[in-house]
């Protein structure tokens, strides 16, 4: 049994070309308006990082829970997490744009701001960079390690690698939880350096995991027409649909907890964050997010038939990815465009640029090895999984 993506497939080439074009256009944007460029870049970076990290989480939970159903589609999230070390490259523009992005990076601002002085031991450029370096080391080590286990199991047929993955997954999940939390605090929450919310890390995680299940669903549905035709069934679609649904609700639970408690207590230093997002046309984005990221998907995805219909599921997964983008856009952009929502062409080019290269790297990884973990002892059970 050998199910492999052909080398230099059309998808690989197209994503490389699109990615390079997107990056080239974004570079033009840098010269046109560097502040907009850095903010757009941060949105795109946080979006694609969330998929890569979500891939790591998928694999960790798969091993941790001893899941069977997801064996056949595990290679997709595995290739998302395998490119975590390469994702570090996309952090460089942020490191260069710290001054434009983060108010706490301004020495003159700190001098006049007692709160920022209090936070300076944490919010300073050197420590910020060191933390991100540390996060990437942790993620790259686990991403590559679990990828290696899976590939070794493919090549050698030794099921011991799966056992090893199972053994390492619990401590890896703990490190994952803390690194992702602090990454969300650093990259996104500290954009508004006075504001704080304990749930913020879980909030970013919830949306990221939802998006990862959505993009995994798209990969599965795409390959189900070709090489995976006899391997994945409607039961797998159904389970993926249920997971997107679950994490959509989980995201709403986190979002609502954060909003509701801040609204109710009505402490100005906290409510200001929502006030920015309720100002001018940002109000529309907030409402789109509430309806589009929760209310509509909740009622539509509740229907069993939607989760079992490939076309409906494709539309739904794409919609949720769009909503995840809007979510991150909504977290980041009110710090730049305070008067109202502005969608810049750079938001599109950075998303396409990083996204194209992300997909190119994923396809490269997929074409090097079998599309399914052929020697996983549970593969047959996963294929014949009946829900």
């Amino acid at each position, binding site marked *: 049994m050998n199910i492999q993506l052909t080398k230099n497939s059309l998808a690989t080439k197209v994503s490389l070309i699109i990615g390079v074009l997107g990056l080239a256009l974004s570079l033009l944007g840098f010269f046109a308006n560097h502040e907009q460029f850095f903010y757009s870049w941060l949105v795109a970076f946080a979006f694609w990082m969330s998929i890569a990290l979500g891939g790591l989480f998928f694999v960790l939970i798969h091993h941790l829970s001893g899941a069977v159903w997801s064996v056949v589609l595990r290679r997709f999230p595995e290739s998302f997490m395998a490119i975590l070390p390469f994702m570090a490259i996309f952090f460089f523009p942020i490191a260069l744009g710290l001054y434009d992005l983060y108010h706490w990076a301004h020495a003159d601002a700190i001098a006049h701001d007692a709160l920022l002085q209090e*936070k300076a031991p944490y919010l300073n450029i050197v420590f910020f960079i060191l933390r991100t370096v540390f996060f990437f080391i942790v993620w790259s080590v686990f991403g590559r390690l679990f990828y290696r286990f899976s590939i070794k199991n493919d090549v050698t047929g030794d099921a011991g690698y799966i056992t090893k993955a199972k053994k390492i997954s619990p401590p890896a999940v703990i490190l994952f939880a803390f690194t992702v939390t602090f990454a969300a605090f650093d990259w996104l929450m500290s954009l508004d350096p006075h504001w704080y919310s304990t749930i913020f890390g879980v909030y970013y995680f919830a949306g990221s995991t939802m998006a990862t299940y959505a993009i995994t669903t798209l990969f599965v549905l795409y390959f189900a027409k070709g090489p995976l035709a006899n391997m994945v069934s409607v039961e797998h679609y159904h389970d993926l649909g249920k997971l997107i649904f679950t994490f959509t609700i989980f995201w709403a*639970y986190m979002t609502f907890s954060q909003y509701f*408690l801040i609204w109710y207590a009505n402490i100005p230093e906290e409510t200001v964050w929502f006030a920015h997002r309720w100002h001018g046309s940002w109000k529309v984005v907030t409402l789109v997010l509430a309806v589009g990221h929760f209310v509509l998907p909740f009622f539509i995805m509740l229907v069993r038939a939607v989760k079992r219909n490939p076309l409906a599921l494709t539309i739904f997964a794409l919609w949720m990815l769009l909503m995840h983008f809007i979510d991150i856009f909504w977290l980041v952009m009110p710090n730049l465009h305070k008067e109202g929502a502005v969608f810049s062409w750079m938001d599109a080019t950075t998303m396409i640029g990083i996204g194209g290269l992300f997909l190119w790297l994923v396809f490269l990884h997929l074409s090097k090895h079998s599309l399914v973990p052929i020697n996983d002892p549970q593969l047959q059970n996963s294929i014949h999984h009946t829900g």
Partner: protein
Amino acid sequence: MASQAEPLILGHPTFRTITDDVSQLTERKTPLPWYFLFAMAVSLALLLFGMLAYLFIEGVGVWGVNIPIAWGWAIINFVFWVGIGHAGTLISAILFLLRQKWRTSINRFAEAMTIFAVICALIFPSVHVGRIWLVYWLFPYPNQMAMWPNFRSPLEWDIFAVFTYFVVSAMFWFVGLVPDLATLRDRAKNLRRKKIFGFLALGWRGGNRQWKHYELAYLLLAGLSTPLVLSVHSVVSTDFATSQLPGWHTTIFPPYFVAGAVFSGFAMVTTLAIIVRRVFHIEHIITLKHLENMAKVMLATSLMVGYAYSVEFFIAWYSGNMYERFVFINRALGPYAWGYWTMITCNVLVPQLFWFKKLRTSIPVLFIATIFINIGMWFERFVIIVSSLSQDFLPSSWAYYRPTWGDILTFIGSFGLFFSLFLLFVRFLPIVAMAEVKGVLPEANPHYENKGEHS
């Protein structure tokens, strides 16, 4: 999937032996130790009622509450018992939706425990103002005095959330009981048993159509209960988190409280399961595998709670807010530091034992660890409530909080009520869901072939 998996029930039981093993517990003559235990539990329950009477006569002055600690043990005990009441519905609803078949052995008594814990919990908000004759003020009844409950108060939401949870959990529990009650009716040797169980079994005959309806009803109830598992403790957390008090007002409270509730509930289920399986000789039905799975859930939820403790601490510093910082440093190093470190030890350190298979499959270790977790989770509420209130914004009113004997005996008494109800349950109702356990036996698989291993 089930082909290579370990069997969930040990000792090659048949449908017949499962029915016998579980039913005979309710049919035999009441064992003597039961009377002894029941007498003890009822005495403690009487102590509770006595303490409540004392409270109603004297007023809340019999407790150690005072300004600024206006919320003392009553709300600690309330949150403690509601938290314990989370495991049952989690096991029966969420694990059902997740198709975790191992739940069948433990769901019945976990659900029963849930209902009894919620009963204990509901006592405290009902009596906490000491004026039981005004308890109806909690409910939005049509009233000419224009005295409406304050719908904007999270304490009012508590009443709705916990009552809804109680009603749905009780309904869920009863629906699950129906087929087993019919089994007891059919086995009844005297008319009285036949009449009582016949009444409760609602005319169950076990027909194909009845099973079809039953399974659909069970699925729907599971779906309805699932959001309730999350909502109840989320609402409980808003009692604190909607305020502006440092240490209470923090956005992670809802999921953090839910994780803590599941944690404490599983600890209580495990403690009780260890006793029940031993006393009633059902070790082949509630196997070590079940206990191990529960230990894993406890480890996971312990880590979540530990995550919340650390993030709260970090954000208190990161906020730059001097009051936030003070509260958290005061928790760890102030006058109630002993409570804080008890909480950390019991909730975060002790469960780390469950990383090791040897320890999480050892009955004595599990038993002791789960008791530690229960203690730790009580202290978690103590730390949250007392340490945040006692040193508030007015240093002139700072004082060390001490419970009175009234506080302590009321709390001890609530265990009496809990165990009285639990003992009645284990005596008179099937403590294991027989019909569901039969469903996970290999014989229930349509492809099952008996390879000559007659048992």
